[in-house]
């Protein structure tokens, strides 16, 4: 029983890390209707930039500042080069463009900073804690807290600020938002920048955990099932989806994996999400769209 709980809690907490990545997807989808396949590449780019700057021996806060500025600049470039020319194209074309974007960002990040694995230490403690007989990684708890803070901040941002309201208007209807005077281009730069910041947070957390390397991109593939499980346009959905995926994949790996050859983590979340989609195509918290003809 203790073992089961340990696996469950470990899974939930690593699920929080998936949520962090899924969150970036949801932000962009909500505000621009774009399914941003490049979110994983943005995680890699931000983490690689930060760690390379740190290795120059600079101050942590200065490095963070430069990386943040870099992510904002990246958002500006994406809006200018990719989104603006594709503004009235079907969503699927934009999706394909973000796949191209993912490749380009991965290439650029590695061309700039190299391909070797970097260790990242920003001072997050990583010792197992004993909580009422359960061994829980302090690092995982830290991740969970970060995810919670980030979500709270984003929720405030969306509901309380003028930019946040504009974002929601844009998400509803691009053209209608334009007609009431919302500057679409600025909004897109802002939301991609915010997604970039979320990517940076995810990059720091994941980078500290597994090292900053190319495989960070693959984490995005874990966030995808979390995302469709939770619903593409729901912030709580991203969190719940991530937790569910994290917990269930660990449990499946431990209890089912050994019987079928192991390493089922690679596809189990997808099958879970797929099965769920068949029952509820809009995800756990997604909006139901009535199709009109």
């Amino acid at each position, binding site marked *: 029983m203790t073992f089961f709980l340990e696996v469950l809690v470990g899974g939930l907490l690593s699920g929080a890390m998936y949520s962090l990545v899924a969150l970036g997807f949801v932000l962009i989808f909500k505000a621009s209707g774009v*399914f941003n396949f490049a979110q994983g590449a943005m995680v890699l780019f931000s983490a690689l930039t930060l760690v390379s700057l740190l290795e120059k021996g600079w101050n942590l806060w200065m490095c963070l500042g430069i990386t943040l500025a870099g992510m904002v600049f990246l958002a500006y470039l994406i809006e200018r*080069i*990719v989104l603006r*020319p*594709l503004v009235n*194209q079907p*969503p*699927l*074309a934009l*999706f*394909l*463009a973000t*796949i*191209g*974007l*993912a*490749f*380009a*960002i*991965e*290439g*650029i990040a*590695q*061309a700039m900073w190299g*391909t070797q694995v970097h260790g990242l230490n920003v001072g997050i403690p990583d010792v197992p804690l004993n909580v009422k007989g359960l061994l829980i990684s302090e690092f995982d708890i830290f991740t969970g807290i970060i995810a919670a803070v980030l979500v709270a901040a984003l929720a405030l941002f969306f509901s309380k600020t003028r930019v946040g309201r504009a974002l929601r208007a844009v998400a509803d209807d691009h053209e209608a938002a334009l007609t009431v005077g919302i500057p679409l281009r600025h909004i897109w730069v802002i939301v991609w920048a915010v997604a970039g910041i979320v990517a940076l947070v995810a990059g720091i957390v994941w980078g500290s955990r597994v090292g900053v390397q190319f495989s960070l991109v693959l984490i995005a*593939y874990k966030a*995808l*099932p979390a*995302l*469709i499980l939770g619903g*593409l346009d729901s912030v709580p959905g991203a969190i719940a989806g991530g937790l569910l995926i994290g917990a269930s994949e660990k449990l499946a790996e431990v209890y089912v994996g050994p019987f*079928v*050859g*192991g*390493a*089922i983590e*690679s*596809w189990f979340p*997808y*099958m879970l*999400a*797929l099965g769920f*989609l*068949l029952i509820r*195509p809009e995800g756990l918290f997604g909006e139901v769209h009535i*199709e009109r*003809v």
Partner: protein
Amino acid sequence: MIYREAGQFKATYSADQALFPIRQDQVGVAILLVIAYIVVPFVGNDYWLGSIFIPFLVLSLAALGLNILTGYAGQLSLGTAGFMAVGAFAAYNFAIRVPAIPLLLNFALSGLCAACVGILFGVPSLRIKGFYLAVATLASQFFIEWLFTRVGWFTNYSTSGVISAPPLSIFGHSLSSVWSRYVLTLAIVTVMALGAKNMVRSSVGRAWMAVRDMDVAAEVIGIRMLRTKLLAFGVSSFYCGVAGALWAFLYLGTVEPQAFDLARSFQILFMIIIGGVGSILGSFLGAAFIVLLPIFINIGSGMFGHAFRADTITQIELILFGGLIIFFLIVEPHGLARLWRIGKEKLRLWPFPY
């Protein structure tokens, strides 16, 4: 002046519906076939035939398969390589478990296996669309990759997870020479491309395109969603499966599951985006482009005295492919095939473009 259809009157609908209604196109296709079947095998050396033409043809076939599903039926798939893997591993298992099986029958059966798996993973398309479906096809990609890596039966418990094709022969002729494998690949690809072209210009192709362009209207004119979508998944996966079998047997000879990873799926997706979504010709143009680009990068790097390291070249490829995808989506969403058509239109008017 050369490319002009004036004076070629079509007196029957039959003539108008011919595969290549314009005489210049007929001549062009004939010349192309002569070059492909006769000139290339005699002129090309083993490197060109074995390392460029065969993979180009096989990847064209896979791109054709994806184009049927994505370009014609409008169902985006990120799992192409998975279906290729099914074809490759099915061909291997047929070959080692039924050694007497004729090669062509083996390829056809392998394609059918892939078609069945494709139909199975196509079922969700009835309920989910767009991004959701794209993510769902990733499920098939990851699951199939895992299956062939982890379940030993499929690789006949080979310790390395690698499968090797047995010595091949067709109608008693050994396929040990590169050019014989090239000609067989070419023949299979020609026949299947012709089949695809015929399907997309008949009622099944119209049903696919109708579903792609507006599914509600398609249902209202009596097109059955279930049958049409699953048929697209089945036919598409058949093409990908045969491509996978050819990849393993006629191109590489030995292959591991990682040859059919997600990167391969993306590679084939890029082929149809660059070549032309919803175009048979585009599948070939896109495959040629993607196969040749790294070679040109290498040559370019050679001109700088091989100043770039291997990983730098990989990164340049990533950036170029990514950039090209974005470029084509913005500038010419119908890809090279559309540029080709525009070129032909211009040629019709040349040299008096008014």
